[in-house]
């Protein structure tokens, strides 16, 4: 039996919990259910007279859709490359900055700037100022070095690399900041003990530093993967998924299907696949995190 005090506490807890719960319900759960429902229906505004329940039709259509497989492949490449680049560059920068006795504060503040920019601004900024042929900063440098002018975002062979660079530029500071914070919280006496215990600097990094910052690394990988999987605005602003489908990752394909081609049913099914991929990746990463 509950005591009156416990009952009152419980009621109070429910009052606190309820608003957030309702907001979440309305903004995430309900749309999600609606999305799932749409994905098993035929909703195509270009041929509105064909509609109704479609079962798994939208999903089976994907299997034979080369554009879907292309976008899935691009998503894997995009996510994998950006996350690996961010981790390597972020860790390297953090280790370097840790050696700087003064001025770490300025670097930390500078590192925040790309993060706080809206991705769409980043995409436009790179498209117009850095990567534009003839006028862009990069082209200027390449021409000065004698490599000639390139259409960084318009050339199908360069566009994917370009958007990967843009994403890495924007988000590496995040990895850098988290890893730097994690590194600077490590107790110095453990490294002194390791020095006395005859560990070389490579051994200290491998046996002490890496295992100790592992939790931070895994969290950063998880968060970077989720953001890379849901990347949209920067690519949309820089290339729009083009040229052709050279940078059309699953997100952009979903968007184009739903809102350019107005095939909501198929678009919803694509979104569900993206959701499944994201959930699967995060789940396995969290498993990795708790694994000993």
């Amino acid at each position, binding site marked *: 039996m509950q005591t009156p005090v416990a009952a009152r506490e419980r009621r109070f807890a429910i009052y606190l919990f309820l608003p957030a719960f309702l907001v979440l319900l309305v903004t995430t759960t309900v749309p999600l259910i609606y999305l799932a429902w749409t994905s098993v229906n035929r909703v195509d505004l270009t041929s509105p007279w064909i509609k109704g329940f479609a079962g798994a039709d939208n999903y089976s259509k994907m299997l034979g859709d080369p554009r879907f497989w292309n976008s899935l492949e691009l998503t894997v490449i995009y996510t994998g490359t950006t996350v690996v680049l961010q981790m390597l560059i972020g860790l390297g920068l953090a280790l370097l900055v840790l050696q700087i006795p003064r001025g770490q504060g300025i670097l930390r503040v500078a590192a925040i700037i790309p993060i706080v920019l809206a991705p769409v601004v980043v995409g436009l900024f790179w498209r117009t100022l850095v990567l534009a042929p003839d006028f862009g900063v990069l082209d200027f440098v390449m021409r000065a070095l004698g490599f000639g002018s390139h259409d960084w975002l318009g050339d199908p062979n360069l566009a994917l690399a370009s958007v990967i660079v843009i994403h890495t530029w924007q988000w590496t500071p995040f990895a850098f900041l988290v890893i730097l914070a994690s590194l600077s919280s490590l*107790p110095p*006496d*453990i490294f*002194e*003990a*390791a*020095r*006395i*215990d*005859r*560990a*070389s600097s490579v*051994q200290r990094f491998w*046996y*002490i530093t890496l*295992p*100790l910052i*592992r939790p931070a690394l895994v969290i950063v990988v998880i968060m970077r993967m989720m953001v890379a999987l849901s990347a949209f605005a920067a690519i949309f602003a820089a290339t729009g998924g083009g040229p052709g489908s050279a940078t059309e990752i699953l997100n952009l394909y979903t968007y184009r299907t739903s809102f350019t081609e107005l095939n909501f049913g198929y678009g919803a099914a694509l979104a569900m696949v993206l959701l499944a991929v994201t959930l699967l990746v995060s789940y396995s990463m969290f498993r990795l995190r708790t694994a000993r």
Partner: protein
Amino acid sequence: MSNGRVSLKKIVKRHGAFTALHGIDLDIEPGEFFALLGPSGSGKTTTLRIVAGLEEASEGRVFLDSTDITNTEPGDRDVAMVFQSYALYPHMNVRQNIAFPMRMVGMPKGEIDAAVQDAAKKVHIEHLLDRKPGQLSGGQQQRCALARAIVRKPRLFLLDEPLSNLDAKLRLETRGELKKLQRSLGVTTIYVTHDQEEAMTIADRMAVFMDGQIVQVGSPKFVFDNPATADVANFIGSPPMNLIPASYADGRIRIGAHELQTSCRVGGERNVIAGIRPSSVRIGPSGIPARIDLIENLGDALLLDLSLDQMTIRARTGTEVTSREGESVFFSADPTAVHLFDAVTRVRIND
């Protein structure tokens, strides 16, 4: 087996404009249990870290068995250290922690296992080998750190306040065990502590640090009986020695209007600081009159606060003293128990 003689020659350590060590000279004999004792900020830990190689001396040289190790990496010095915080590797279990110094030099696994077992047995933590440091009590962590140090059979042990994070009872037990362990291993040990009682009980010899200098080196008993300065006298012994301004003339001192005989044979007149240990203060029918301000009963002894001309003199007496707080008594001291220090230089006068 190498022996482990340590020599410091004119070690100076500067941090910018601040000088932490003003030219330390020290010789530590093989197999000795040597304490570096001093208040915090006196330079004892800096000295230990310079011997370990964790800090560089600004000037001077460090020798280990006549090899100049001043510029040698810590790992190449053949020294092991126990940190005040223990500095165990939190992501490794006890076994891996103890094995770490040997794994780093690529010792075969069989040898490592045997050595880990042996070291763990010596400090009685064989049953904890699979635990992580976070699952150990403070005392067990301390033993784990000790095992990690002894496992590699170094030429020199460096202990940086290893007992300061233990509770009082455990500290007493561990102190004794540490001493026995050091005896059985026979490895030269340098032990940093700010606790004079710890240094007194554990060390063969000790160096007393004050303000970045060594003011006295000797056996604990010698330093206790013959403190080189008034500050050493004040630092060593608990409760600390009474230091009373007095004037000296031919073997006798004058405290206010009262006289006390000393065993000092130095001639002439001068201002001095008279030092009398609380345990040497005798309460009796004659001597210098004082009032009892406070009595603290320790069970087997009494601590008296005596007031004399606005000064407080502490006395440690047997429980047979029956005087009460507020009463007047007479105190005196054996002539040989009066230490004399120069009033200006604070250096010892009598021998």
